[in-house]
């Protein structure tokens, strides 16, 4: 029967090596003691072995990393290599074991379960930055839905239909988030670990007065001409602050970036108000 061989790619890290040999030894140990059961879930095997055998103390500290590693290695009894965490997670397709199955496996055409570590930019094959080409989302979005949409998988297993529903929803959410400037800005801040949506009230008089006057002008505006004029002004401001955001974000001035986002939120609300009135 097959053994799992772990090829440590570029891991000169001794801890990683130990972990991998540990997992390897545990798996082979498991196979020797229970040869009949199918070795599908190394996580379960490690858990059961933990309760039964007594492993040396030095390996105890590697448990959590071993479990994490095991979780990443969804084995289907085939030989595979582990990625030391550079970029996308490379795990085998649950159906055929094909290596590079990103959302969807090309070789057996089965939909993969949702991987939370994949971010929206990766789905569309874009770099993780704020500026994107306007048309780059649409085409890719349609491509993905042709492969992932739940309506296309009626004759497949329940599990795969569930995967389809989740993946399709995630792709839709990704497209929606990345299309609008403001949500894209907030998402990219979130990816960098900065939480924008704090519940603190702001009392900056200059900003608030400006927005107050803007909103009053909108409510007092009579007729679509005046409204359109205001709208173009607001769009200008949005563009201006969007550019400021990029600058602030790229120079890591995150407080300023947050302020830009706040302003953009207010301008977007004003735009919505205008659209409602039109």
């Amino acid at each position, binding site marked *: 029967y097959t053994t799992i061989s772990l090829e440590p790619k570029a891991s000169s890290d001794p801890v990683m090596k130990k972990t991998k040999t540990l997992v390897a030894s545990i798996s082979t140990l498991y196979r020797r003691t229970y040869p009949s059961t199918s070795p599908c879930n190394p996580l379960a095997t490690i858990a059961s072995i933990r309760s039964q055998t007594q492993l040396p103390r030095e390996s105890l500290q590697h448990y959590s990393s071993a479990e994490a590693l095991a979780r990443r290695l969804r084995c289907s009894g085939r030989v595979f290599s582990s990625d030391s965490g550079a970029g996308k997670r490379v795990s085998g397709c649950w159906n055929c074991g094909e290596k590079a199955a990103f959302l969807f496996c090309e070789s057996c055409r089965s939909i993969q379960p949702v991987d939370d570590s994949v971010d929206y930019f990766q789905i569309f094959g874009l770099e993780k930055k704020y500026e994107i080409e306007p048309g780059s989302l649409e085409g890719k979005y349609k491509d993905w839905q042709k492969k992932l949409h739940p309506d296309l998988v009626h004759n497949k297993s329940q599990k795969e239909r569930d995967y389809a529903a989740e993946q399709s929803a995630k792709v839709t959410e990704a497209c929606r988030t990345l299309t609008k400037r403001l949500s894209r800005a907030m998402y990219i801040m979130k990816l960098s670990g900065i939480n924008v949506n704090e519940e603190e*009230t*702001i*009392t*900056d008089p200059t*900003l*608030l007065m400006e927005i107050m006057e803007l*909103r009053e002008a909108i409510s007092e505006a009579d007729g679509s001409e005046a409204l359109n004029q205001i709208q173009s002004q607001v769009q200008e401001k949005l563009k201006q602050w969007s550019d400021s955001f990029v600058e602030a974000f790229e120079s890591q001035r995150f407080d300023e970036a947050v302020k830009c986002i706040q302003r953009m*939120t207010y301008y977007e609300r004003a735009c919505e108000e205008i659209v409602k009135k039109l």
Partner: protein
Amino acid sequence: MMMMLRQTTRKACLGLRASPLGLGRRLYHENVIDHFENPRNVGSFNRNDPDVGTGLVGAPSCGDLMSLQIKVDDSGQIIDTRFKTFGCGSAIASSSVASEWIKGKTIEESLTIKNAEIAKHLRLPPVKLHCSMLAEDAIKSAVRDYKEKRAKANAAAEEETVEA
């Protein structure tokens, strides 16, 4: 000024009645609807009046904007209030309630009003609690503005007496 808010109120009101907030049973409490349909104290005072304090606060997460103005007499009692809020129904109701409650109180007493009380009165759901927080901050901001104005006025008056 009243017209504008009435118009938006009427339009939004139909929306409130026709479609309940959220799924199924979640509706606006009658207090909220009351304040929304019959808003008290909408409008504004002249910012530059010496006995007027203006509180201007915003909630950046949802883009709400609240302005609360107080008119204070010489004994430190709030004799009149005006508010203007751009935001959701809960925000408007919160500021309306706040403007009503502080009328007749002294400025120190008005600072004791807590957002929890406003939220309880309006039965605000958790997602709307920040609206009541905004109202409390608006009161504090108005009082602070008034006190600063008085301090400046007193300082100027003292300078004049010294020079004279």
